[in-house]
């Protein structure tokens, strides 16, 4: 029995091998894209992460531009410019075809940061502007050890530059923002409803819209921010942007 099967198995194994080699070709240890704020280095407070994610999400719904903040522990053997565009391509930040992604990348141990700009946003966020935001807005905060403040101020300016108009980001406050228990309960309820309800809807009524779309999910805020269901749209990066160190 097993003898008879062997040629088929061999070819199958070979075919599978080819597929896995193809997939595993470019494996670099980048952090996983878990949301719009990936805080691998653990330098941002949770409330700031939430505020930023919400602001970036709102911004993407309006413009389809994807903005992401990433903090990492160290760059390994790469320069921050190399790491930045490779990470951008790896995650595919920005929509495919528009390449309208932007990453604010911070490396904790190297004490370096960079605004990495996708092809499609290079016209709005020029290298000179990116460098100026890093040096004049973010670095002063970072020098005092205030990562939250620097990232908030920097993101604020990034969104302003990208949209040509003011996009209000909440100020950082020392106290935790109060949470309304009733509102929280309602959000969890909506979340559960969507979580269980949407797939059912799809099965029963042939709901064929994309269930896990790249990034924006219409107006369904709770779903996205709870599940971290955010993914890059497949945008490209070519090394645009600017950086500095603190």
């Amino acid at each position, binding site marked *: 029995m097993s003898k008879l099967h062997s040629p088929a198995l061999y070819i199958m194994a070979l*075919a599978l091998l080819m597929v896995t080699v193809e997939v595993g070709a470019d494996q670099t240890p980048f952090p996983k894209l878990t949301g719009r704020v990936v805080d691998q280095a653990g330098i941002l407070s949770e409330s700031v992460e939430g505020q930023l994610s919400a602001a970036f999400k709102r911004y993407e719904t309006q413009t389809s531009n994807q903005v992401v903040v990433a903090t990492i522990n160290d760059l390994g053997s790469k320069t921050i410019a190399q790491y930045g565009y490779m990470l951008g391509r790896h995650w595919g930040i920005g929509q495919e075809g528009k390449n309208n992604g932007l990453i604010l990348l911070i490396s904790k141990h190297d004490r370096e940061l960079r605004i990495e700009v996708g092809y499609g946003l290079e016209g709005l966020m020029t290298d*000179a502007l990116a460098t100026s935001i890093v040096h004049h807005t973010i670095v002063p905060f970072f020098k005092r050890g205030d990562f939250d403040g620097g990232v908030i101020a920097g993101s604020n300016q990034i969104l302003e530059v990208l949209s040509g108009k003011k996009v209000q980001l909440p100020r950082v406050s020392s106290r935790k923002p109060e949470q309304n228990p009733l509102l929280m309960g309602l959000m969890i309820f909506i979340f559960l409803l969507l979580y269980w309800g949407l797939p059912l809807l799809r099965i029963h009524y042939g709901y064929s819209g994309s269930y896990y779309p790249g990034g924006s999910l219409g107006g369904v805020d709770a779903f996205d921010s709870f599940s971290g269901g955010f993914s890059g749209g497949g945008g490209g990066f070519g090394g645009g942007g600017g950086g500095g160190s603190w």
Partner: protein
Amino acid sequence: MSRIIAVLFSLLLLSGCGINNLPAYDEQVFSAWSQVENQYQRRADLIPNLVSTVKGFAAQEKAVLTEVTELRASVGRLNVDADLINNPEMLQRFEQGQAKLGSALSRLMLVSERYPELKSNQNFLALQSQLEGTENRISVARRDYILAMQKYNTELRTYPGKLWHGWLYPDLKPRENYYKAIAEEAKQPPKIEF
């Protein structure tokens, strides 16, 4: 029966990928190269403005200023040849010219460090970050070009691409000469110190 299906399915998986790979990868090599040329052009476009800005504050640095201007002109003349991508020797000369221009530019930026007024000039600061960004884009584009060639060469020499090559695309040639011409330089990218 299930065995036959398995064999057929596997053969499909093996050969299904590949028939269009070679011409597609060939096309990618060309577009990757045009991106490299774009970025070189972008750098060349920055130079006149940069030179005139530096001249305003540091006119006595004539040597490096004229060197940059002349190298830009000589590389520009090489670029006129549209057949660059099909001529490895020309490509190598072009790459060497660009590398020289890159190191002359980094010397110019180094010299600029000595002039505090220049260093605080807004126009210069903007140009500096633009140049830095352009150098970065050049290295990204060159790396992409090298990777595209690598992919193309590998496809040409390995199964099943090798089969398709002999069968359908005998006129496509390996590009290792070009690969050598550009990859040698890439190992030691010109570094810009600010």
